[in-house]
């Protein structure tokens, strides 16, 4: 079977290792998986978690942007803080 596999996916074999390494790197970034035993997590799970995490971060960024804009409205627009906030919101 291994021979078959290698014959079938000669090229992918090489990149498999890369992928494994990248997946592990990704895993380090994910807060949830990182705390668990990482040796048993599958690539698909990591990818799924990554997608979810990114979506969460997007949401968080939106929330924070909203908060910052609210804050922006409370302070005078010329202040340095306002500038900072604006830059944060981008």
């Amino acid at each position: 079977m291994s021979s078959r596999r290698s014959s079938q996916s000669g090229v992918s074999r090489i990149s498999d290792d890369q992928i494994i390494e990248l997946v592990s790197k990704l895993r380090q970034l994910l807060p949830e998986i990182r705390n668990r035993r990482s040796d048993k997590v599958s690539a698909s799970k990591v990818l799924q978690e990554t997608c979810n995490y990114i979506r969460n971060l997007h949401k968080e960024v939106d929330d924070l942007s909203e908060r910052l804009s609210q804050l922006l409205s409370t302070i005078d627009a010329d202040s340095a803080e306002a500038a900072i906030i604006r830059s944060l919101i981008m």
Partner: protein
Amino acid sequence: MNHCVPDFEMDDDYSILSSSTLNRPRKSPVPEDEIMELLWQNGQLVMQSQNQRSFKKSPPSKHQDGDQSASKEIRPSHHHHQQQQTVTDNLFMQEDEMASWLHYPFNDANFDNDFCADILYPSAPCVTSIATTTASPPVRPIEQPVEPRHLPVPASASAVASSSRPPIPPVRRTELESSRIPNFAHFSRHKVRTEPSGPSNSKSVVRELTVVDSCDTPAVVPESRGFRAMPSISNTEGASGGNNNNACGTIAIGAAAVAASTHSAGVSIGAGASSRENLATCELTVTSSPGCSSASAEPAAPKVAAEDRKRKDREAAGDAECRSEDAEFESPNTKKQSRGSTSTKRSRAAEVHNLSERRRRDRINEKMRALQELIPRCNKSDKASMLDEAIEYLKSLQLQVQMMSMGCGMVPMMFPGVQQFMPPMGMGMGMGMGMGMGMGMGVDMGMSRPMMPFPNVLAGPSLPTAAAAAHLGPRFPMPAFHMPPPAPDPSRIQPNQPDAMLGSLGLQTPNQPWMSGFADPYQQYLGLHQMQLPLPQNQATGQPSSSKPSTSKDAENLENHPPGT
């Protein structure tokens, strides 16, 4: 979100969910005001008034609230409002009931046909609109689907009905399903008829999806595609709503998805991500479905049924791998039994293995595609570079969130002294974030450095207690003017916008290795804070001076700074 599962309304005397009972059309007229709903409780139909009788999980043989005349499944649509409330409760129960269903021995496959014939086609409340509404939210976050669900309750019912109608495919599938998981089939059918509540919407969506897909082949693949939407639905639902959502998602999945094995993986994964409980429920359905799907790949429906049972027993396994493994076990076993020859067994096993491997790969590819969509400006086609980009993007996103939260906390703490530093800081941050976000890998170099020191600095804000919050204020601008009193330093930092933050971070003092300790920066900050007032002037004047190329590495700044101090 509990409305995933519509209430089952069955005649009062139905003790067990059986095809025969399901088949029976609801005859007894139900008073419009009061609709008795037959809920599935522990695989048992329980009579329940819409006003929400207490739900009791009763063993299959019990009828709850028995006496009312059988509620009519179709009627509920009229009273969906009431129903929704009860539906919610029902759904909860039904959640558990789903589990019991799974274990429920399914009965004749024919049942499904009749069932469908009676219920699906004749029932047709007019809910076409729902189909569209349900279709739209499938991938949407939770809140949205909830609305549509509630509104067009009757619509959903009709939509559901209509969705179920089109097809012969659905009937066909149900046949398949019924052979495998009759309960689900019935359930789904039933739902179509009865409940237009929210959950049914999702289910109708799912079913539509599955129906569409099933047209291609009864195999898993099409269903899995249909299911993809489902997982997102269920995932989102689960994430937002909690159990109810999960119940809906799971039930819907179970009902519609019989054959989708891959989806179960996605579903379970998603569910797991959203919440553990969802995962549990999802797994129930998932495990059964994978079994079915894999079985469907193989011939022999009866075997599938048996395998189903086995799978159900193995519900615990929630991972995709587990599922694929189960599938592998199942198929080879069945194959072996059927063939009885070792050689064939081996080849079959290999085949099965390949199948599962392919499935796994498909799953991974699908997830990679999803990831690629999330990442802005990702035009890489190969996996490795795409993963690289994903990693960078994720880091930058994390960074951005940290900065923003820091900013939020900092703003109230702004000190007048730091004002002058703010703009440059802000610019630097903005630049940094912009770079991190998506300027491309080329600029990544500049950003990657920052990454290192940043976490250190940013970690500070995350520590924060009330006392720390005070530090946040100075700290934020700190990077900008952190530089030690020497005037040129701050100015040096400013021009290097991308590195400004970093540089400042790193440039605590020429003498101190800024990376060394967190406490140091803090001390520095506190100390510097005193000096802030005079500093701004220095910096303001000194801005133009050394403008290091923004692309310079942090090391350069760091190195230059100490000597250059």
